[in-house]
């Protein structure tokens, strides 16, 4: 990729200017180290990641860490499964049948109780930093596993807001589809434009770019060119149909059920099947400060069937072993109920569910006390086997054999894909 090479040169020449840029970080979005995929062979059978991200902070007490009959509990029944400790809320009719294919972590724990900060942390494994933008899980996977010449984007995000790849550069940004299944805007040529006219437009652009680069330097031109090459490839690719559901058989669509989340899950499977390494599917609405029991029941109704169908479908196609499926949100919710049957933000303990490639499923990690707290009355931590977001990233990185010891460069400072202080949670895969 010429882009990154030129960026690297850009940085090199900048660095050559000595202390000039040492006090600033205005290259916060650039990266050095393009030699990534040349020699290295990854030692992992996981080739895809699907992140099911629950925006708003899904309540652990209404999903996977119920406290029935207790003052903090929801008025839900729980479904006992063959896996001890895996007893989801009664509305998880389908997921309850898949206990053998899942691993539940009840002891996710962080200190970020603000939506945007916590979302950043759970999406990247780092707390937000005003001067450095970290890539999200999908961008990391796209950069580590993605083929830069692949016609489809290496990271597709279904719904939700765009989250740029930060120091990993524009080529690893998510391609966001805001209305999954609907016609993607601007993917087709404008009315009256055919291949020939598009070609001549691009030929003229190329000529103009050459002159501009000569006079005004090539950094901007190279980045611009990379963006257009990728766009053109996508526009002309027959694989585009994978973004849509038209040729998906009815019985499969029925299995996933209805709704935007269900459609997104089918598209996620279609993309993974085609070779897209990273897909993120968002389901929002979990910020249940009020009326939590009804709202969570409704949300689980949207979630349960598509998620279970996704697992079944991937298994049938022999893809579950090579696809890591992660379910999580930015934090959990307070055990103490509000006066309006809702719960506040609670990062101290919350749930994440992993399944698929490399995961040692049919087990539960972590435990909260009988009321769902992570601390006792003396404020001592009682949470069993706490897992921090950074630990989770480190573990996923280990399972997928990311280049975690490699120093990437963002501006003038070294950065690592995963926090160096984080620890591996071996239980997840051993």
């Amino acid at each position, binding site marked *: 990729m010429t882009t990154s090479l030129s960026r690297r040169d850009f940085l090199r020449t900048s660095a050559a200017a000595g202390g000039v840029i040492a006090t600033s970080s205005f*290259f916060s979005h650039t990266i050095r180290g393009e030699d990534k995929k040349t020699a290295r062979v990854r030692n992992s059978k996981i080739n895809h990641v699907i992140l099911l991200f629950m925006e708003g902070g899904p309540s652990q007490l209404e999903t996977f860490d119920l406290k029935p009959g207790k003052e903090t509990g929801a008025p839900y029944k729980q479904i006992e499964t063959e896996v001890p400790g895996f007893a989801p809320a009664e509305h998880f009719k389908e997921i309850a049948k898949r206990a053998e294919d899942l691993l539940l972590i009840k002891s996710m724990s962080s200190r970020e109780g603000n939506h945007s900060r916590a979302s950043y942390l759970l999406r990247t494994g780092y707390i937000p930093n005003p001067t450095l933008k970290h890539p999200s899980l999908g961008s990391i996977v796209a950069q580590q596993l993605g083929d830069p010449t692949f016609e489809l984007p290496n990271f597709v995000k279904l719904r939700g807001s765009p989250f740029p790849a930060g120091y990993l550069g524009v080529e690893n940004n998510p391609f966001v589809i*805001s209305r999954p299944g609907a016609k993607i805007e*601007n993917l087709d040529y404008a009315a009256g434009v055919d291949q020939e006219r598009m070609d001549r437009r691009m030929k003229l652009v190329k000529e103009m770019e050459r002159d501009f680069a000569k006079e005004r330097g090539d950094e901007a031109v190279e980045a*611009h060119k990379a963006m257009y090459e990728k766009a053109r490839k996508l526009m002309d690719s027959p694989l585009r149909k994978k973004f849509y559901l038209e040729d998906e058989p009815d019985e499969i669509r029925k299995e996933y059920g209805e709704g935007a989340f269900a459609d997104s899950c089918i598209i996620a499977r279609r993309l993974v099947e085609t070779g897209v390494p990273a897909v993120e599917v968002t389901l929002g609405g979990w910020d249940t400060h009020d009326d939590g029991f009804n709202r969570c029941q409704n949300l689980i109704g949207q979630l349960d069937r598509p998620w279970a169908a996704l697992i079944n479908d991937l298994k049938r196609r022999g893809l579950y072993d090579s696809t890591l499926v992660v379910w999580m949100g930015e934090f959990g919710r307070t055990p103490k109920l509000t006066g309006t049957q809702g719960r506040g933000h609670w990062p101290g303990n919350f749930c994440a569910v992993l399944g698929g490639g490399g995961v040692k499923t049919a087990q539960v990690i972590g435990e909260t006390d009988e009321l769902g707290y992570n601390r006792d009355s003396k404020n001592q931590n009682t949470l069993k086997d706490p897992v921090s977001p950074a630990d989770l990233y480190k573990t996923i990185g280990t399972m997928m054999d990311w280049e975690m010891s490699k120093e990437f460069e963002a501006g003038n400072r070294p950065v690592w894909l995963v926090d160096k202080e984080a620890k591996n949670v071996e239980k997840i895969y051993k």
Partner: protein
Amino acid sequence: MLRRSPFLALLAVVSLTFGVLSQYDVFADEKKTEAKKDEPALGQDPHKLADGLSKLFDQLLAESKIKPSKLCDDDTFLRRAYLDLVGRPPLPREIDEFNPGSRKDAFGNKGDDKRPALIDRLLESPEHARHFADMWTVITIGRDADGNSKRFLRQYLETSFAQNKPWSEMVYDMVAVIGDTTEHPEVGYLMSFENKPQDMVGITSKVFLGKQIQCAECHDHPYEDFTQNDFRGMQAFFTHGRTGARGDGANRVWYTRGDKVVKDKHDALVHNVGKQWLYPQFIGRESYELTLGKTLRQSLAEWMTSPDNTYFREMGVNRYMAYFLGMGFVTPVDDFNSLNEPSFPKVLEIMGKDFAASGYDTRYLIRAIMNSDLYQREVDTNRTNRNDFKYYSRAYVRKLTPEQIHRSILHVVGIERLNQVEPIRDVPENQLTPEEKASKKILDGVNGWKGHIYNQMRIAYGAEPDMRELGDYDGTIVQALMLLNSHLLGPGWLTNSIDKICEEHANHNDRVRAIFMTVLGRRPTARDAAIMGGVMANWGGGNAVYEDLFVALMNTTEFATNH
């Protein structure tokens, strides 16, 4: 633009502070005396500050053995100034009026007066107020704020920039406002925070003071002397900064509530998030003298916007240095901290004082920066300044912001200019005449497109409210797809524009020239003409050829950047 009125005093004061200017140290004492004697009144004439900056950096560059790039030509300057001040490239008519490369413009300004006159014209245009309102709405409350907050705040900012209201007054209004949106649209600022005082203080302090104390919300600041108590002390000023709404539909207004005038010490004691009782406290633990007869937010706003507030005046200067030159004295632009020292602290200090002395006159500061050589250099570099990221020896290629791209696309394709509609009466739709109905349909289409394009740009760039920084040329496929395939570039919109151009110009070369001026904001060079000749030779005839040229130019780096 070197003028004959040297600003030696400033130069002298500034020179003292630089180790690099070692040879001046010998004259340090002498210069100090001279400085005292001749120190001109600050804040009076922006051209003096501009000249002072030009001269000072000439000296610094000479000391560092860096040869600056040449000053840019008129075409380059014209487009740069338009994009920076009104958010779009110049129209062909405006290019002709400026008359690039010739001695005199259409307004009778000659030679060295042409550029300052252009800057003045643009600063006074309604489009400038609109562009700065867009820009400041994004800087303050961000692209993702709710629609009503954005609408009201924009309205306030646009009116205020149009009147050139002092910056200190604008910030005072936004922070201290009491009342409702019918009379005080600036309530939009506070209401965007949805009653979260911790967000109000985080953004207010970062955007207007350059102090990023938000980290101290959850833990003591890692490398600054901020503790959680400092954060809470600042946050306490916003305890009464709640906003609410009343009425429905068209009658709905938003207002600030709970503001209590401090009558005695007890009124200032607030129960804060940390469940402690505390008094408000300014950043840096400057003690807050309880002011009776004012609300807490009024006291805070007064402290913030005082001519003596170094944070406020230096943040203002740094913001505009970064905006106009691609790089401020402090980078990131709004992160002043002890590990992030300004590149030229003394220059920043003096410019800050100057800005305050001008009465926080934003246009004064902008005139000073834009009239200086620092702003008017070429992008093209030489061997000595290729790697200069400190001394402003060259201009940088700056990526347009989503707001600039948005405005540029709409303008270039001409959906407002070329699909003009008659004024429509403000009456219920069933009372409109058929002609008015037809006009309204076009207008709705135009407005729909405006909103739609903006939304697309938001997706393409993400919702990051920060100003883009140098070296960041990232765009996404989404942006490319839009500029290649948008319906805006098809029948009804672009085709109308092309038909118009072809109608006005019979000759092929004139049409090419008009398209260059429309899209790129400059006349084609001989080299461009040669390229067009070569590439377009086999394209055949008809207006489609010009559509292709038009769209191709819109997809160049030249279009997507300011340079």
